[in-house]
């Protein structure tokens, strides 16, 4: 057992080294110094308290999305529509804000309602992908992708249509609401401890749901073998729908945080690709909830750390995406190589 685990770590470290090696080669090919690039990414994410707070701002939605995806993956579903579920969470949160901004309700209560709205919005959008899958026979990957585009179109329609700023509508989004309606932030930093707490609670709940409950066990049974689970009397399609609803609610929470704690309005790219990035994190951690926090933090740091690259080194900030992608790719390939050749060597 121990031998197997050490072997696994060996393959993962090899994948990590290869990924950094390949990205270094790409950097050399475009005439940039890899050491300088990695140093800048590190300094841009952990260089100061303010930068680290930015990393945490990205970490919150990423962790929430990853937590949700662990549930749909457990049920054997490829919920690629998670991106749109983040967007719908943000849309409904903004909507609830707009309804109650001028009411006599206390700001704290309005914030609570808005976040709850975001959870419901994300869950309903996920339910749509679920209904398409369960009752329409539409594979969740294709239904989800289509719904992602629809969600983005809806955002843009709202920003340029019914919710446009007085005067001129623009890509900068809807009218920001005043600070008292924001989730409280730390002094001089952009991170809200409430948002951070919500994300951590989300992953803890998912961890216990999957590891320690009968529900989680049955969900995994559905994911491993749909037919066998059905024959065992597990209400399979209901479990598929539950997993969509849970994932959608967590993705919706991510969208709600983007509105309530970060942007204070709806902007066109409100989801910032965290849905797709969450899929990468979930694959990298091999769908194990325990690793979600460190890996999501690492990915968030890469994203934030590379923002300065265009200014500092005239490199495109998509370098972080390349590094993340190559890393996940090598980890997947290493797992496959280990399964195929590793066993033969040991036996």
């Amino acid at each position: 057992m121990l031998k197997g685990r050490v072997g696994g770590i060996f393959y993962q470290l090899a994948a990590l080294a290869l990924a950094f090696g390949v990205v270094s080669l790409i950097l050399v090919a475009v005439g940039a110094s890899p050491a300088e690039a990695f140093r800048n990414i590190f300094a841009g994410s952990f260089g100061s308290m303010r930068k680290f707070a930015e990393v945490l701002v990205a970490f919150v939605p990423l962790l929430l999305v990853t937590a949700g995806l662990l549930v749909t993956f457990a049920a054997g579903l490829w919920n690629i529509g998670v991106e749109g579920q983040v967007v719908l969470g943000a849309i409904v949160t903004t909507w609830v804000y707009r309804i109650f901004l001028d009411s006599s309700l206390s700001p704290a209560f309005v914030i609570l309602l808005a976040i709850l709205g975001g959870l419901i919005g994300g869950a309903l959008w996920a339910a749509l992908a679920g209904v398409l899958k369960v009752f329409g026979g539409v594979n969740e990957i294709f239904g989800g992708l289509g719904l992602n585009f629809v969600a983005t179109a809806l955002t843009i329609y709202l920003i340029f249509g019914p919710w446009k700023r007085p005067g001129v509508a623009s890509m900068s989004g809807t009218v920001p609401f005043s600070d008292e309606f924001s989730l409280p932030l730390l002094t001089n930093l952009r991170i809200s401890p409430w948002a951070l707490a919500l994300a951590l609670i989300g992953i803890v709940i998912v961890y216990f749901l999957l590891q320690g409950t009968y529900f989680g066990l049955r969900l995994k049974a559905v994911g491993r073998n749909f037919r066998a689970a059905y024959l065992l009397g597990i209400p399979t399609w209901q479990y598929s729908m539950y997993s969509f609803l849970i994932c959608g609610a967590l993705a919706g929470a991510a969208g709600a945080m983007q509105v309530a704690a970060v942007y204070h309005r709806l902007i066109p790219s409100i989801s910032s690709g965290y849905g797709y990035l969450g899929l990468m994190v979930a694959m990298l951690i091999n769908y194990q909830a325990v690793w979600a926090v460190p890996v999501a933090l690492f990915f968030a740091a890469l994203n934030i750390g590379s923002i300065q690259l265009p200014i500092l080194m005239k490199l495109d900030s998509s370098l972080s995406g390349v590094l993340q992608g190559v890393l996940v790719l090598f980890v997947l390939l290493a797992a496959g190589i280990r399964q195929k050749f590793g066993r033969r060597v040991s036996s």
Partner: protein
Amino acid sequence: MTQETLLIGLAGVLASASPLIFAVIGETLSERAGVINLSMNGTILLAAMGGFAVAYNTNSILLGFLAGMLIGALVALIVAFAGITLQQSQVAVGFVLALTCRDLSYFLGNPYMGVPGPRLQAVPIPLLSELPLLGRLFFQHDVITYISFVAIFLAWAWIFRTRPGLMLQGIGEKPAAAYVRGANVNRMRYIYTVVGGALIGLAGPAFSLATRAGWMGTISGLDGFGWIALSITIFGGWNPLRGAFGAYLFALLQWLGLVLQPVLTQVPSQVLQVAPFPLMILTLLFVNIGNAEWVERALAAMPDSARRIFAKLLRAMRTSPPAALGVPFKRD
């Protein structure tokens, strides 16, 4: 709208669909063999950028197109290695490649942003281009559009009218049976995935050197076409003719969105541009719903006359994927 502008518009629709046609045919071949190449969205972007960069630096459009195909083939080779040799999830590897290649195209393409580069010119075909209506529609395009017309029929004939095509259907539907009949299933799958990948890669330069010449990074507007091509492949029921119909339908809808924009002033242009997507979901629903269990039950409960009509309707629309799609083949 005069007849002339309408004709020019429709001819534009045929040309602008050509990248989608290549991508759909490539994906169809790959999936017919049993391998899902989900990397398409990233592959097309990387091939568009790479093709443009090569054509720009060598001043050869032909080399640009070849570079795009090479990129597509190499990405497909990774999918094939992971999916066939290592028997890992094709969906997982394909999705990772879709994101990685996209980001890589933005990263490497940074120096080429907005640079004016070579572009394929229209070559009217002598005599045929003089035909009334048809000449304007079909015979005043660039070479890549003509190739896209031919590719549709070649791919269709290959799959449905040749012996190797029959074998191709076999390795996607019943690989064990094809193996018994002497097919080297995994080698065939490698070949079709890589050839399909090259066709998917061809879609890139078909954008960046023809229909949407140039490279504009994130604002190229190419992000998303790969996912559309994937939906069209399913809509097309893994048949090149039906897939081509889907691609033309999509291009037509996009064109209508542009044309109708001055009429529908309340609707923001960005919304009209994505109008095909909800329609795509609906069509996917229509072609798939016949596979759902509750529909069969509902049909059984109907009176005879109604059932016959609905069953016929569903069967006409229904498509189902190759039976062994995404399933690794093991000899045992």
